[in-house]
């Protein structure tokens, strides 16, 4: 059972700000963990530290009882027993598919007589039987990515690293490959670290997601955790669309937002009364009904009942995207609602938000 542990990693390039600072993270044996974040958040640097292409300035990386990285004592990439999938595929154009795939076997104690069987199995795994003698130049981008995947899996790596492997594929293929990666992970349970900036990709493929920002981990949790119970406004905003309403803690479970709007919110961190917080409300948890433009403030009509006016309505086929101006304040909410009943621009509406799905974040 080998857990991958990153302890207090910092990596600086030149004199600038640290690309990764004091990053601590644990990847459990057999899980698929995504590093998710916007470009420049340090996720690729973290992956290259894991692979051994970079040496940390401070901190250590451990795989079980084996120390892989520490300042001045970094095991080179070739002695880590890992595999990696690159954004550029990095399939060698001068080698056939077969030569690409078996390349890593020569560095492992795999008898040559076994290579053909392993090659065949690996190609079958990525559904590229019959392509062994092709050159990469004769393959499509998706096929090249499968070759890279076969090459990574054939050596039975201890750790699999994926660096935005799908970002060069077209949208259709990308979606297909997401499920493919998940399928392979369910079959082999190789401990995997997956770098991506695409939250949909992370949601589909991951056991857990580590959301990164500014070189550090903002939150780690299951896809459901980070979506339903984001710890910070950044996480809430980065994963899925959301309405972020700044306010102050009034009492436990009660937040005062702009225009003396009182919102009841169930989940969230322990914040003392008076502390500034943000309330995250996903567009799809807001319910609209025809009604008067203003509701009496307070809980008279029940918690989180507001009045407002539709200011924009966009038809998306399977859903409507509304913008609703809340009465008595500057707050504008985005609402995702079913196409029926339809509301039109200028129409007064009653707004109801389930307090259990209002999340207080920092």
């Amino acid at each position, binding site marked *: 059972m080998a857990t991958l542990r990153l302890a207090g990693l910092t990596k600086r390039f030149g004199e600038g700000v640290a690309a990764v600072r004091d990053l601590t993270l644990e990847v459990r044996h057999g899980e698929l963990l995504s590093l998710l974040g916007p470009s420049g958040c340090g996720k690729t640097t973290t992956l290259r530290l894991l692979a051994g292409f970079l040496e940390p300035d401070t901190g250590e990386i451990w795989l079980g009882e084996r120390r892989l990285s520490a300042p001045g004592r970094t095991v*080179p990439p*070739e002695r880590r027993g890992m595999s*990696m999938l690159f*954004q*550029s595929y990095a399939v*060698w154009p001068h080698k056939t598919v077969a030569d690409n795939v078996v390349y890593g076997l020569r*560095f492992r104690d795999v008898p040559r007589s076994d290579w053909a069987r392993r090659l065949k199995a690996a190609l079958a795994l990525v559904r590229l039987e019959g392509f062994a003698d092709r050159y990469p130049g004769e393959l499509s981008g998706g096929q090249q990515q499968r070759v890279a995947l076969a090459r990574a899996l054939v050596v*039975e*790596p201890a750790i699999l690293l994926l660096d935005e492997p799908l970002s060069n594929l077209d949208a259709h293929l990308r979606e297909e490959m997401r499920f493919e990666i998940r399928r392979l992970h369910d079959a*082999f349970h190789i401990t995997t670290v997956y770098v991506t900036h695409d939250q949909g990709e992370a949601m589909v493929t991951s056991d857990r997601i580590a959301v990164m920002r500014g070189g550090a981990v903002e939150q780690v949790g299951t896809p459901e955790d980070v979506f339903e119970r984001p710890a910070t406004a950044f996480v809430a905003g980065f994963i899925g669309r959301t309405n972020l309403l700044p306010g102050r803690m009034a009492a436990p479970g009660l937040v005062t937002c702009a225009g003396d709007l009182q919102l009841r919110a169930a989940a969230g961190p322990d914040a003392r009364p008076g502390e500034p917080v943000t309330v995250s409300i996903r567009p799809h948890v807001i319910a609209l009904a025809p009604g008067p433009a203003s509701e009496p403030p307070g809980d008279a009509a029940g918690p989180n009942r507001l009045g407002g006016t539709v200011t924009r309505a966009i038809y998306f086929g399977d859903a409507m995207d509304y913008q609703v101006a809340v009465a008595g304040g500057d707050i504008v909410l985005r609402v995702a609602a079913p196409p029926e009943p339809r509301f039109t621009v200028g129409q007064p509406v009653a707004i109801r938000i389930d307090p259990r799905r209002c999340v207080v974040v920092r």
Partner: protein
Amino acid sequence: MAGRGAAGGAGRRRRVDAGPAVWLVSVAILAVLVVAPLAILAVSAFRVPGGRGFTLANFVEAFGQAIYRGPVGNSLVYATAVGLLSVLVGAPMAWLVARTDMPAKAVVRTCAVAAFVTPSFLGATAYVILAGPNAGLVNIVYRALTGTEGTLVNVFSMLGLVVVTTLYTFPMVFLMTAAALAATPADLEEAARIAGAGRLAVMSTVTLPLAAPAILGGFMLSFLEALVLFGAPAMLAIPARFHVMTTQIWTFFQYPPQVEVAAAYALPLLLVAAGLLAIQRRILARRGFTTVGGRAAAAAPVRLGGFRWVGLAGCGLVLLLSIGLPYFALLRAALARAWGLGWSLENLTLRNFRYVLFDFDPTRAAIVNTLELAIVTATAATVLMGAVAYVAQRRLFPGARALAVLATVPLAVPGIVLSIGLFKAYSRPPLLLYGTIWIIFVAYLTKYLPIAYTACHASLQTVHPDLEDAARVLGASRLGAFRDVTVPLVGTGLVSAWLLVFLPSLRELSSSILLYTTRSRVVSVVIYTLYEEGLWEAVAALGILLLALTLVVVAVAQRLLGRRFLQI
């Protein structure tokens, strides 16, 4: 299953990362090759000749006398005229070939490449045969036609020198400008057309300004080439009783040698060359905008109508003067018992070739030396610069970029100037190379480091670092990944670098002329000394051999490596 792979690669055999060693060795070699001769040159310019202590007397000697100041002015006039004339010839030709419907564009391009690889000292020899004041073919024909005793053209003059040199420097402007014009996206011109500009307005407001940096860069390179050229000026200016700076430096080396004065005299040449290259780089660096977004379609060629034949005639005339007539003259002299005797079967012979190849020891030895030097230099430069370019590009070590800068410094060092430094450095213990071909090897290697570096760098740039990283993750060491992935992928690029050093090494003269001894001659030097002795049939035969080898290598290289080879 997951745990197994971790143990797989490790421990079976120890892999040593050779990177630091490669870096240290490269630094040492570059320091010896580049820094040492320049430092020694600079110091010797201030040394008391044959004594101890420092002095400014060398500069007083070098620039205090009118007879030595004259060549400075001559060089400036010569280089400026060559630069301007090269642009006047090369830029319009480039436009005709790159942007119009002129016929036979591929032939013009190929002939321009042939002119590009023709050594100007052979062109000068040919023009002495063609346009010498007394025995030149043109003047003989002129006298026969007019019945007078006059001279139509005299190649032994500043004008003659400028024209002959330009015939071999204009291809530089041509190739650079043609590349820039071809890279100009059509939409930039179409945008001007839509905005209301006519064809001429598009030319003057869009096409020319976009190509201007390339044209200016070509001017500077032609200027620089003429400034540091030795062969053609020595053959044409000295008989016309004037000197340019390079030939003047050469006279300082004649008995009794005044090496310190030569060093003082050479320093301004070095500074001018360095300054020009710095300016040229700055201009070309700003060219970036013409090459981005290369996906745009090429512009439709401009229809010239009847003028396309005028254009072709103009190109034809230039190429006739540049390679047609000279090759003809050389071939004729090479096949003649005596070149002045005219056309007849009795005058036709192959004995000149037998003479230079087998009978005459100095030429035979020179041919062997030249081939040996060119092969060894090209190999050493490619290996060394391949390593340096790799280390610099992957930034394997702090300071790796400095190596790259060091490798391109010799670009600004004229060959004849470099030789003075090398002569001072290696004509005495501990490293007594003078008198062997190894000092010439050091000169060639140093001189062509930038070419090799640029070619290696360009081909390495096409290999995504991920390709190598992928091999390393799977268990290959850095050297293993380099061998398995990078080398096969940049193979043709390395061959190209090798050829780009091999070709100019075959004909190098301006460094060799100060470094050769009777025991270490090369073909270019022998051609020059045979020329001085008036053995023009042998010169022509040797020249034809040199040209034939060069053209065959270029043709094979273009077949193997594609048309882009040598077309910048």
